[in-house]
């Protein structure tokens, strides 16, 4: 039977842009262009490699996000995923990680899966906990923060490079994995891939389709609340000197003045 892989991809504001908050203290998605979170490209890449090693596999890219989030799905399809699922609903605006994980859990169950692949963290929220929460909700093993990953004989294996040790992990499918940016550069979509993506199916679902109550998600349903957001004041301009042979000594003097030496 075919290996069913679902890759969770997030549509985020470009990290190199000037990101802001909206008046309701949610991420402003107007001011900065959105794109597929770069860290989720690694997840798509690993899913593609796993599917290339499998006899028969099917990759679904899945996103929970606004209308424009379709761009993220399109990118995943251009890279080589087979189909896409977009959960879109006005009531989702302002959903936090608990709500998002609930929706993703229902959606991957709707699609059917043997393996869920996530990125290590989103580049806007940067929590890095959604994959663990998803595994908890689905009741399947979490094999997260992997720098290498492989699937064989109904098992997923991988290496997790932690602070104290590097661990070799193993779990039976179905499972949720997340991969880091150490897992290997993501491929660029080829021209052929981009053309083919236009014909691949994109299923759109709303909360009703997934049997989720609007009260469980959105800004009102969030389990956390942002009280205020203030722009960090720019750092006061420092002293900049050009090295004329004394740069290191001048720097030492500065450090001594600051009591570092």
């Amino acid at each position, binding site marked *: 039977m075919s290996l069913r892989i679902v890759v969770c991809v997030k549509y985020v504001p470009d*990290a*190199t842009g000037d*990101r*802001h*908050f909206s008046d309701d203290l949610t991420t402003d998605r107007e001011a900065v262009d959105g794109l597929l979170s770069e860290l989720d490209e690694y997840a798509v890449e690993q899913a593609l490699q796993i599917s290339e090693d499998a006899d028969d596999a099917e990759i679904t890219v899945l996103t929970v996000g606004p209308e424009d989030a379709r761009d993220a799905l399109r990118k995943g399809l251009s890279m080589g995923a087979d189909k896409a699922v977009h959960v879109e609903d006005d009531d989702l605006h302002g959903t936090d*990680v*608990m709500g998002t*994980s609930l929706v993703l859990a229902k959606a991957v169950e709707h699609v059917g899966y043997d393996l869920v692949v996530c990125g290590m963290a989103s580049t806007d929220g*940067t929590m890095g*906990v959604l994959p*663990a*929460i998803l*595994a*908890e*909700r689905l*009741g*399947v*093993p*979490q*094999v*997260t*923060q992997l720098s290498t990953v492989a699937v064989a004989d109904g098992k997923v294996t991988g290496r*997790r*490079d932690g*602070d*104290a*040790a*590097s*661990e*070799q*992990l*193993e*779990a*039976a499918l179905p499972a949720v994995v997340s991969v880091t940016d*150490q897992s290997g550069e993501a491929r660029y979509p080829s021209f052929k891939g981009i053309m083919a993506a236009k014909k691949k199916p994109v299923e759109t679902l709303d909360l009703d389709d997934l049997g989720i109550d609007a009260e469980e998600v959105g800004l009102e349903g*969030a*389990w*956390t609340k*942002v*009280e*205020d*957001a*203030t722009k*960090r004041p720019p*750092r006061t301009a*420092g*002293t*900049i*000197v*050009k*090295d004329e042979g004394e*740069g*290191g*000594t*001048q*720097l*030492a003097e500065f*450090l001594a003045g600051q009591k*570092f*030496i």
Partner: protein
Amino acid sequence: MSEVLVYVDHVDGAVRKPTLELLTLARRIGDPVAVHLGSGVDAAAPVLAEHGAVRVLTADAAEFADYLVVPKVDALKAAYDAVQPAAVLLPSSVECKEIGARLAVRIGSGIITDAVDVEAGDDSPVTTQAVFAAAYTTRSRVSRGTPVITVKPNSAAPEAAPVESAVEQLTFGFGESAAGTKVVGRTPRESTGRPELTEAAIVVSGGRGVNGAENFRLIEELADSLGAAVGASRAAVDAGWYPHSHQVGQTGKTVSPQLYIAAGISGAIQHRAGMQTSKTIVAVNKDSEAPIFDLVDYGVVGDLFAVVPQLTGEVKARKG
């Protein structure tokens, strides 16, 4: 006074500094109750009591090392049930964030990750976070359930607050999912003898400008003269010049030391995300247009191969 659970990050009973910071922050909200899982509680307990833990709840089992994350969630949940705390605090390491997140789902609570400050609030604790690569500072609260909060290293200065504290054994059984992910091999990271990157008061980092693994010696020598930790940009890590465990930035470590020295690093947004909250920032870069200079308190436009060794020599001379 209500109690606050503090999850202890330790290596065989050697309590890591971020946990002591957590105990200090926890005392603003209530009486800290430490949860120590794994071996070494005899060594850890006095240190925890010294920093204000009124109780130490402990459990040791092979499962903690043999399987990933979930056994520890089971134990922490048992501690939660026993204590009914006002909040649960954990260090913001990869593993502890996952433990906290799974606990939060189980107890029906919201979670805030990577706080840099925690204060008591009217209804629930108020946390401070640096977001969008530290371009913004937000204040947030958990609005449902018992707040679960993970806190970044260097968020508070650990204060001693000695108390009499009892060590109590946690009793619980592992759930069905505890044995889901097996740890089939473990290679401990070798100690460099230098301070821990996220905990260090001074960090010296090298980037692409260092131009080769062998040249990182210059960075290490400066670091050693200052008693600092060594960091690296992703470009230097990707080139294989320095291990990933030393990467500073969005997909590496966040550091917030008293002094950050960047040598041969341009200052891309993803790098800044990991160091922008440092107190004093210094850079050496031969390109006067490099964005890192927007952040610095002191910058030297010059060749790091000349400036860094001169600085190291001067530091050594002044320290005698």
